[in-house]
């Protein structure tokens, strides 16, 4: 009797297995997944990867498009033209963004890293989703000025793009949805969490702050950390830091997005990671040297009704504190990110 039971249960399990195998057979093999190492000392990413799982061909397609100058109206500028890896994907030495036909915008090129932790994009938070962020520079007349429908047709006519889309998404059909998802996959891999600061925080053996770095960290915690919150070094809020208004640019900041006068002159708090590699500073790139920024906070703040209470009386910094702060900010430079071979420019042929 006992044996009989075992046989029947065994046969039943075998049948279940066969049925299971039978249904599995129709599932096609997808592209190879891309494993993104997330830093242990960071919060959970905001971006929902279940919508758009990272794959090796997806990331490769996003990277190729990022560096493809043919994505602009006259094939002169790529995303990577303004977002340079050695400048933490900001634009080295350029105060204001510029694009096709010598056009110039009104804000500086934002750096690109740790984007999957951001809730909204642009200096004013006007773009509400990471996937849709590239839409703005692609179509803006001062930037890449491309017509999306024409761009999709152009890609569809290109055998290399058809092959890359097929590898990433299973067919050669090129849609804006696929294009933006591939961009997002590449941008998602731009994670900067490998600076000396990170090693110190994670207690990597043998890595310690020097006396000056350590003193700078204290100055930072006392005078900067309320807005430039660790570990992202931004609290992702919009604040008016008292930067004098420039009539020539007439940039009202977040008020343009919300229509609320309370948001006049507010801009997103930028991250301080890689800060010494990503000058110029401020939303309009008016400062080219970090010491100008220190001096501005020390004695340059212009108070308006929306100026943040934290900076209303300025942030006093002695010459020694500035020097210490400089040394601390230097520990936020992430050479493993700036030299990450997986992010570097690819040859477009």
């Amino acid at each position, binding site marked *: *009797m006992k044996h*009989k*039971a075992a046989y*029947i*249960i065994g046969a*039943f399990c075998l*049948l*279940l297995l066969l*049925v299971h195998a*039978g*249904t599995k057979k129709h599932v096609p093999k997808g592209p190879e997944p891309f494993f993104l190492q997330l830093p242990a000392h960071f919060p959970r990413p905001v971006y929902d990867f279940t*919508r758009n799982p990272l794959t090796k061909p997806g990331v490769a397609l996003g990277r190729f498009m990022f560096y493809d100058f043919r994505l602009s109206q006259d094939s002169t500028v790529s995303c990577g033209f303004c977002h340079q890896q050695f400048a933490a994907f900001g634009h080295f030495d350029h105060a204001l963004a510029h694009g096709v036909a010598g056009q110039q915008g009104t804000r500086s090129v934002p750096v690109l890293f740790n984007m999957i932790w951001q809730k909204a994009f*642009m200096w004013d938070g*006007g*773009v*509400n*989703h*990471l*996937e*849709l962020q590239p*839409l*703005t520079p692609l*179509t*803006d007349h001062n930037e890449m000025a491309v017509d*999306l*429908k024409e761009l*999709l047709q152009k890609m569809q006519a290109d055998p290399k793009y058809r092959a890359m889309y097929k590898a990433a998404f299973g067919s050669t059909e090129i*849609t*804006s*949805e696929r294009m*933006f*998802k591939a961009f*997002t996959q590449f941008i998602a891999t731009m994670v900067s969490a490998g600076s000396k600061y990170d090693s110190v925080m994670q207690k990597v053996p043998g890595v310690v702050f020097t006396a000056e770095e350590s003193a700078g960290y204290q100055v930072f915690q006392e005078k900067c950390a309320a807005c430039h919150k660790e570990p992202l070094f931004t609290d992702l809020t919009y604040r008016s830091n008292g930067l004098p208004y420039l009539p020539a640019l007439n940039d009202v900041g977040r008020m*343009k*997005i919300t*229509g609320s006068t309370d948001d006049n002159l507010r801009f997103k708090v930028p991250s301080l990671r890689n800060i010494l590699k990503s000058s110029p500073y401020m939303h309009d790139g008016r400062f080219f040297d970090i010491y100008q920024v220190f001096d501005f906070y020390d004695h340059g703040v212009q108070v308006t009704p929306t100026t943040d209470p934290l900076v209303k009386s300025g942030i006093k910094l002695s010459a020694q504190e500035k020097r210490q702060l400089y040394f601390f900010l230097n520990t936020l430079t992430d050479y493993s990110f700036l030299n990450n071979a997986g992010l570097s420019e690819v040859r477009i042929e």
Partner: protein
Amino acid sequence: MILRIFSFCAGGFLVLTLLLAGKPLVSGPAPSLQLSLTHLMGQQPLVRKTVTYTNASGEEFTISRFRYFLSNFSLESVDGHVVTLPPAYYLVDDAIDSTKNIRLTPVPAGKYKSIRFLVGVDSIHNVSGVQSGALAVESGMFWTWNSGYIMAQIEGHSPVINTPLQEFIFHCGGYKEKDQVLKYVTLPFSQPITIGEKQPPHIQLSADVEKWFLPDTVSFKKIAVIMAPGVKARQVAGNYQHMFNITGITE
């Protein structure tokens, strides 16, 4: 005894598994509902570019573009149940006739007394990243610097406008609470319609552009450009929510 119970359960489970693993049974086409849209200016069919109209403020104008999203369809049955139809988004463009025919499917069989839909795109789809189909952004119906769909738009020209092109651009959008223009429209049927195995019912709808300028009177001298959420978009959306009418039903 244990064995018998096990065999019974296993047998039942096995039958169920085999049934679920198999392909679904083939049946006839799912019940559906056909909508067709006609665009009007007052009583007359809308003619873009070539015909000059006069608005409620006495200003002459022509229309060059007329587009809007329809989504979130639901039907109310004669016994008062609201049946929400599967999510579907349509971009109706006066310049593209094929966009004026909409087939809603599947619709559960039953007797219905009214139809309800959203003129625009619900807030969820304004904040959920890149979309496909009618919601794909290359339509130009998505704002790039201040994310969100343009729910409805008209563009045209009027001699009273003091810009070089004398153009008016009404792009109405906004999904955030303060400036939202999410207008739901409910249209009752003159008599209940039946959806079942027969030929799908066909509802003829009209959308009258004249309604964009009333009852909250719009003057091109005061408003020529709407390209962001706000007071002006809310005013015009408050008007255009009344533009739809059922002009006929064929069963």
